[in-house]
Structures are given as C-alpha cells and as structure tokens.
C-alpha cells in the first residue's frame, strides 16, 4: 500500500481546518471591532 496518499490527506485536512479556524476567528474579530467603531462614530 502506497503510504503517501494517507500522509498527504492527513496533512491536507490538518492544514485546511487550522487555516479555516484562523480565518474565521480573524474575520469575526474584525467584523465585531468594525461594528464597535461604527457605533462610536454615530
């Protein structure tokens, strides 16, 4: 059995989920802080 497809799949899943987590947390932080700034300007 060729092991590399398993290694690549495991790394792919780990990298994709970690990047998705970081992007989601970063975007939600930016969105929430933009909402605070918008309220301050009102």
């Amino acid at each position, binding site marked *: *059995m060729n*092991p*590399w497809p*398993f*290694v690549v*799949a*495991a*790394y792919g*899943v*780990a*990298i994709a*989920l*970690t990047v*998705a*987590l*970081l992007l*989601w*947390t*970063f975007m*939600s*932080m930016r*969105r*929430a*802080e933009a*909402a*605070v700034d918008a*309220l301050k300007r009102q």
Partner: protein
Amino acid sequence: MLIGLALTVAGVVAGLALTPPDYLQGETVRILYIHVPSAWLGMAGWLGIAAASISQLVWRHPLAAVAGRAIAPAGATFAAICLVTGSIWGRPTWGTWWEWDGRLTSMLVLFFLYLGYIALASAERERGGEGQIAAIYGLVGAINLPIIHYSVLWWRTLHQGESIGITGSSIDRSILWPLPLTMIGFTCLFGAATLMRMRAELAEAKVEARMRRMGRE
C-alpha cells in the same frame, strides 16, 4: 500568530522531508507531527474550559465565561483534526479507519462534548445568562480528560500505549526532533485563535450593551 505559523511550517517541512521513515510504519509515521499536537490541544482546550469554569463559578471573574466560549471552537477544531488524522493513520497501520477502542471513543466523546458546550454556551448567552450552566457542564466534562489519558492503560485494545511521557520517549530522536516545533507552533496558533475570539466576544458585548442603552434612551 506569526511565530506559531513559522514554527508549524518549519516542523511540517522537517517532518515531511528531513526525518527518516520508521522501520515498522514506514512513511506514515510522518502523521505523528500533526496528530500528536492536535490531540494535546484537543485535551488542553478542555482543561482551559475547566479552569475558566472554576474561575467563573468560584471567583466570578468577568472574563472567565468569555475565555471558555473563546477556547471551545479552537478545541473542537483540534479534536476533529486529531480524530481525522488518527483515522487516516489507522487505515495503513491497523488496516481499519475506525475501531471502538478506548482512546478513539473517548476522543470522539470529547469532540461531542465541545459541540455541546458551544451550543449550550451560545444559547445561554442569547438568553442573557451569565454562563453558569455552561461552566458546570465544562467542569463535569473534564471527567473525560483522565479517561482519555489512561484509556490506553485501562483498555489495551488497538491504540498504542503512551510513547511520549514526562520522563522520556520510546520514539527515536531522529524521528522525534520536529515534534516540539509543531507542538509549540500549533499551540501558538491555538492561542492566537482563542485571543482573537475573545476580542470578538468582547467587541460583540460592547455593541450589545450600547444598543441596549440606545434602546432605553
């Protein structure tokens, strides 16, 4: 976050390109460098939730509930990574994607506990609660941590026993050395994700408070 990214990339590159294959498992041993940190962070995340829960219930720290809610998505993500990478690793090593083994099952329970915590904490927050029910749930769920840790000793089924301990490791140094890089790197990324969620939660709370004040005026 940048330090975490740099260490993770360095560890992943070293793990994929610079270490020799294992004499028994061959190339699949390289999954170790992402599987072990994700298992550690899945468990450490719930330990963080338990600490935040104690801080909230005993000392009523104002940031404790925020910290608990912020840790949960990162913890759930790393528990999921641990389960998926473990399953992928299991297929060529054990000949099966899944087995109801003590370690695998208790890790799956941890993932479902995270989902329950996220649902409970957000429902409680929407109803204007202080998060005490979620804190109690966070404490009760911590019972699963020693079960995960000792599962390989209590039920000797498919998952291997402890190969990395406080006193040393049974893994050869030529294979082990990139692991601290990915362990510290992923931990920094976990910390960055948690801190960003905390900032988002605090900003959302500010907006809600301001909207309530504006509604009263």
